[in-house]
């Protein structure tokens, strides 16, 4: 009896091992083949002159030396950082403002949430095409408005304005995302905090500044980090609206990596750019984490 029970336990365990293996196998094969191996190979191929087909020659750090001196990389990095600043200031900022405002009203909460959030769910490609129709010189929405009020048509996408032209839809699309995160955080604040604030005579903006914002600071931090990592992934809107132009003026790292690899066939160099994007992302997230942590202590 005793032995029988033990045997049963043992047999369950050995068969469990089989199931563990079987159940994990598809995930291991798929992520191994299409995620981890390609990532490692990108890192490796960053040290090669590689045209994607037959030519592949080890050239050490040459891709990275070229990258450091590449005028377009400099521009794309600055553009990416500029979008990142807009994202932190306007996406997270507007997210905070809207969350506080919606929290202060009684009616329409659900409506506002639906209206603010839906751009997050739709494709950046479609949004890009939509904004192309707004910016278009002949008869786009903006120029139709101008002509209607008797003004001259404006060329909306120029070397000076192109980055702003792609930054606006990028920001606009994701405000609702940060709004939902922060609004959820605000609704979780227990009522007693506000009651105490009320006793102290704190209302309106003061209440927001001294009670609400410090209490959701960790969520704001999460949002800032998400805005940073999200900005490094910008591709679709730039690709559709300006294609990185005119004359690379709105190029971001993602579009430049795509062009170098799949248009100019410089696969090794493209891999080096991709590695640069990953490293930049890690450095910026760590920096943001450190900077924001210090802020948090002061409360």
């Amino acid at each position, binding site marked *: 009896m005793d032995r029988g029970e033990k045997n049963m336990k043992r047999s369950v365990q050995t068969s469990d091992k089989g199931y563990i293996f079987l159940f994990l196998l598809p995930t291991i094969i798929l992520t191994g083949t299409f995620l981890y191996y390609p990532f490692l190979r990108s890192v490796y191929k960053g040290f090669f002159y590689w045209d994607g087909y037959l030519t592949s020659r080890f050239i050490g750090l040459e891709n990275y030396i070229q990258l450091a001196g590449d005028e377009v990389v400099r521009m794309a990095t600055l553009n990416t950082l500029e979008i990142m600043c807009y994202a932190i200031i306007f996406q997270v900022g507007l997210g905070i403002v809207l969350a506080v405002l919606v929290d202060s*009203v009684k009616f329409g909460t659900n409506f506002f949430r639906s209206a603010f959030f839906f751009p997050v769910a739709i494709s950046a490609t479609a949004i890009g095409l939509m904004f192309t129709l707004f910016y278009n010189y002949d008869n786009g929405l903006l120029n139709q408005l101008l002509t209607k009020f008797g003004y001259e048509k404006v060329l909306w996408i120029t070397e000076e304005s192109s980055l702003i032209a792609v930054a606006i839809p990028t920001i606009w699309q994701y405000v609702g995302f940060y709004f939902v995160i922060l609004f959820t955080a605000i609704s979780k604040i227990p009522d007693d905090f506000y009651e105490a604030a009320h006793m102290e005579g704190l209302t309106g903006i003061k209440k927001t500044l001294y009670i609400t914002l410090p209490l959701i600071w960790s969520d704001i931090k999460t949002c800032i980090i998400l805005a940073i990592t999200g900005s490094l992934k910008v591709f679709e809107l730039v690709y559709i609206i300006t294609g990185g132009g005119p004359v690379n003026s709105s190029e971001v790292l993602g579009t430049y990596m795509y062009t170098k690899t799949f248009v100019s066939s410089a696969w090794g160099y493209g891999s080096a750019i991709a590695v640069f994007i990953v490293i930049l992302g890690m450095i910026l997230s760590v920096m943001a984490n450190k900077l924001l942590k210090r802020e948090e202590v002061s409360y």
Partner: protein
Amino acid sequence: MVTKQTPWEKLQSTLTRSKLLKMVTYILLIAWSLTTIYPLFWVINNSFKPSDEVITDSFSLAASPTLQNYERAFQQIDIGQSYLNSLIMSGGTVFFTLLFGGLAAYTLSRFKFHLRGLIQTLLAASLLIPAFATVAPVFEILRKLELLNTYWALILPHTAGFLPFTILVLSSYMVTIPKELEEAAIMDGCNRWKVFSRVIVPVSKPAFSTAGIFVFLWSYNDLFSALIFVPQAEVRPINVLLSQISSQYSGTDYGLLATAVTLTLIPVLLIYLLAQKQVVKGLTSGAVKG
């Protein structure tokens, strides 16, 4: 002379002040809602007008709505084929991600074994890998397997790319399922597969539907990978078609472009209307901690 407010006047002035504040708040909120709703309305409205009417006045309501743009979208640019491609590839991605992700999540949330910690760390780390850093070698692999420009060329990389996050979401739900449920099933003679398919999956339905929705949206909305792996007309998903026609017709055929955008948005808007809570939850679940 000192003018002193009566209590009544005091009450009145505070009331109007807070009323004014409320009104300003509502105006601001409605203003932002308009920035998201109006562009969408503009596009849908213009999709029902002939292109020359869009050019002369894109703001007026479609006076005599016409479906001619929709007919042309299906005939001229074969949007139906792209729709089908998108559905097959994103549907396939959802199926495989949920099946394999579910199995992996079940294993990781229920069994203690040697490599568990390592696998969990690797999965978490992979969330930091952007598509830019895998795309070239994946292209190479797909070319070797002769899968480029087939449905698999998008299903496989998408499934692999979305698995880690799906596993994270599913397993954090599955750890909350009481062990007694499974033990009862095992007593009844179920093997692990049966426990998974008959107990775990039905109980985890909310997590599966949330994950299914965000995987579908990510896959359906992705342009970058699709542009590289499945650009050919027979297999291209709807986003690739959009990107190709945007340069071709831009500035000339507003009606057709507005229609293409509208058609692309319809499935997503439908999902959003039917399952808004899950969409919001799914797309923000990475950020909001339990």
